[in-house]
């Protein structure tokens, strides 16, 4: 262990003195303060703080990810090409200890920088309202929606099955109405894609003058006297002139009403006017939730809106950002949540360090960096990559689904659980996220294991890369 630490501390010195880490540190030192002053968001104090935390955490995570990749690969491949391994690995140190030491050194550096910069971001987030002279109402809003850790639930978007698409396609074909929509020679796949999207919209749309009810079960609020938040975003078919939608909401246990009985709990009614395509929230007391954890939310689209309002998930990601309707309730503190978020970022760095160490055991510096960056960007935009190939030609799609898609789904998907997005919404980084995080560590262990295997059998004096 002593020699592992000797290698680790040497690696830290290298990253600092060879200026690799310094570049990233300077970048963060310059950009973060600029961001703290320039972040505006939607102009409100809450918006400014949300923007700063979101970009601050994302930027720190991104730059430290790049630092991890570059520094880890530089230190290992450098030792091989400049042959320091000749003197180091002929000392009483096992090769796995050496590689573990390199990885440990990078991670200790990462951890120190992550803690330092996160502390800065946290300080700005917490003392921001004082510095900007926030009033009492703003402070209350921040306390409810930002300095908190709320669990969230959202309804499943109703999807369309391939059979339904096929049936609709045949109908269109038989009615010979295809010409109305498509030019001659349009591919079947494209027509079906259009049908799918249209049907999906239909299923999740609320026409003017009609209503929709979502039911949630197992809503477990930490504090029954606390608050329940309904978060929504209006997607509209045609944008109203003033870009505002008037809405009527009812929240509570509606089951007795259906049987023609008096409700057991209070049912809260809310009327609002909100801009389209923007996330908005309203608050009601948590006693709207029934004792068994049931709560229903009814939405009424008044005829005056003269447009269809749609509630559906964007993209394939099961996160709050892509949901146009969700309920949130307090389940922890901002501080704990922030620490959890930082931990998740660190887990990513562990994965990247292991990936970089693996790549440097058999590739030269530029190739190893390239490979690591490709993997890093792929896991960072995994949702987009997966979606991009959804409507592929059947044969190619089959091959893709059984190979690359499986691999991408198996890899840690950085974009699917982005701690910055969680913190911005005051959303609880929950057990699910931590399960994912431990999955990242498992991946890191596997990558490191493969790296050690390759490195142990490598003829170090033969490397010509």
């Amino acid at each position, binding site marked *: 262990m002593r020699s592992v630490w000797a290698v680790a501390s040497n690696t830290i010195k290298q990253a600092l003195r060879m200026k690799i880490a310094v570049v990233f540190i300077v970048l963060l030192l310059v950009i973060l303060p600029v961001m703290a002053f320039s972040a505006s968001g939607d102009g409100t104090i809450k918006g400014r703080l949300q923007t700063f935390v979101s970009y601050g955490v994302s930027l720190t995570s991104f730059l430290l990810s790049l630092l991890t990749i570059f520094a880890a690969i530089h230190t290992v491949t450098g030792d091989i090409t400049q042959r320091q391994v000749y003197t180091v690995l002929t000392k009483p140190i096992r090769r796995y200890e050496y590689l573990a030491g390199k990885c440990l050194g990078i991670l200790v550096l990462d951890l120190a920088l992550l803690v330092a910069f996160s502390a800065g971001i946290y300080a700005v987030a917490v003392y921001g309202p004082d510095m900007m002279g926030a009033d009492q109402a703003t402070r209350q809003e921040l306390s409810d929606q930002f300095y908190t850790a709320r669990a969230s639930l959202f309804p499943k978007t109703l999807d369309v099955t391939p059979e339904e698409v096929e049936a609709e396609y045949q109908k269109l074909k038989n009615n010979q109405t295809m010409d109305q929509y498509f030019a001659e020679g349009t591919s079947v796949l494209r027509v079906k894609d259009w049908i799918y999207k249209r049907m999906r919209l239909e299923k999740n749309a609320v026409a003017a003058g009609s209503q929709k009810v979502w039911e949630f079960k197992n809503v477990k609020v930490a504090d029954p006297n606390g608050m329940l938040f309904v978060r929504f975003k209006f997607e509209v078919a045609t944008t109203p002139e003033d870009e505002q939608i008037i809405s009527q909401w009812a929240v509570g246990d509606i089951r007795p009403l259906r049987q023609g009985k008096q409700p057991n709990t209070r049912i809260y009614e809310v009327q609002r006017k909100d801009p389209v395509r923007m996330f908005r929230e309203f608050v009601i007391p948590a006693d709207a939730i029934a004792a068994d954890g049931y709560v229903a939310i009814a939405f009424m689209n008044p005829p005056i809106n003269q447009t269809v309002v749609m509630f559906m998930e964007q993209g394939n990601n099961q996160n709050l950002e892509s949901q146009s309707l969700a309920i949130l309730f307090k389940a922890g503190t901002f501080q704990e949540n922030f620490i959890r978020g930082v931990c998740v970022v660190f887990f990513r760095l562990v994965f990247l360090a292991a990936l970089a160490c693996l790549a440097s055991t058999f590739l030269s510096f530029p190739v190893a960096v390239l490979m690591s960056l490709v993997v890093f960007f792929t896991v960072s935009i995994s949702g987009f990559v997966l979606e991009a190939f959804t409507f592929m030609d059947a044969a190619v799609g089959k091959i893709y689904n059984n190979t690359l898609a499986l691999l991408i789904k198996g890899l840690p998907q950085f974009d699917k659980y982005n701690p910055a997005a969680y913190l911005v919404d005051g959303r609880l980084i929950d057990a699910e996220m931590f399960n994912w995080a431990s999955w990242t560590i498992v991946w890191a262990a596997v990558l490191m294991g493969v790296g050690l295997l390759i490195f142990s059998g490598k003829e170090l*004096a033969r490397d010509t890369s």
Partner: protein
Amino acid sequence: MDYAIETIALTKTFADWWGRRKVYAVNDLTLQVNTNEVFGLLGPNGSGKTTTIKMLLGLLHPTRGHAFLLGGQGDDPKINARVGFLPEESYLYKYLTPRETLDFYGRLFGLPRAVRKDRIETLLDMVGLKAVANRQVGSFSKGMARRIGLAQALINDPDLLILDEPTTGLDPIGTRQIKDLIINLAKRGKTILLCSHLLADVEDVCDRIAIMYGGKVQAQGHVNELLEQADKRQITTGQISDQAMGQIRDILEREHAEFDLSSPMEKLETYFVRTVAEAQQQAQPTSGAESTTRMAGFLAGEEDAQKQVLSSLVQGQTKSEPKPSQAGTRTAKSAQSTEVEPKSAVLDSLIKKAPDQVTLETPKKSEDTAAPIQTKTQVNRGILDQLVDPGQQGDATTEKPRKGDSDHA
């Protein structure tokens, strides 16, 4: 018998891109290096010396055959703990200072902090880099880097020292120092494998040598045996009268022997070392070769430092006393470097005003018979004597035994 180094039919081939074997770097090499022996591995560039060392240390895998270090494998940490290795170039971390470099390697050996600190200071002193111990190695000259390289190879007080071209890039004084160090480490029971194509280096310090070419050993044996010209005789005297010379000439003519009488030439290395040492004593300023000056100063008389290094290196070592037979060989080796050859006799006696000496010995085949290796009694005696612990070796300033007394008696 346990060998310090043993290879059995060791073979290394390098394949081309298609996996076809193209080059035999080392071919069926069987070699044994005894414990407490200075063994020289010679050969021109590309003869397989370095490849052999890399296989010994586990940096390359043999295609066939086996290589053993101290009875074990070269990649076993237990074996590594007893080995010191200086590669053909120093390969140091440029961003570390000499002190940090030695500390890093010391930590790899698991040496406690106090021991590390002690050894680092004495080693820095020994290699003459104490004054620049806090400067990053990246700014060092090749020779300075070489000195750090040597120091890192010694930090663990190794039983076996593998030196690949140790004198590359070193000035003559540094070269001389390394050779003296090798001799003295061997006296303390260490085994040294010296790999070089600089024949003078090897000749001065090695007990046995092997000459490699094309990955194979072409010749091996004791240096003295290989170089001895049994059909010739050499007489070395101090200054004698013309009358005595005439008598000797008469005797030789009566023997019908072919002979050549002249004053011996001093070796350039010896002359160089002495000149720099003298300049150093007169405290003449130098700008460029600062390290050289410092080294000369160190060689000229910073006695304590050197004693300290060696005693720290042998501390706690049970076999630090040389074995009697090997000690004999070693002493003879030292004597070889102190002897005065015919042509240097006049100059020599003028300088040191020593009593006339006569040495009768068999000359070597070496081309530079006329250029004796060393007149250490004047210039370098100080260095060697400082390296030799007076407690063990007797009075360091007394005359060393003659080669003829031990080897060829």
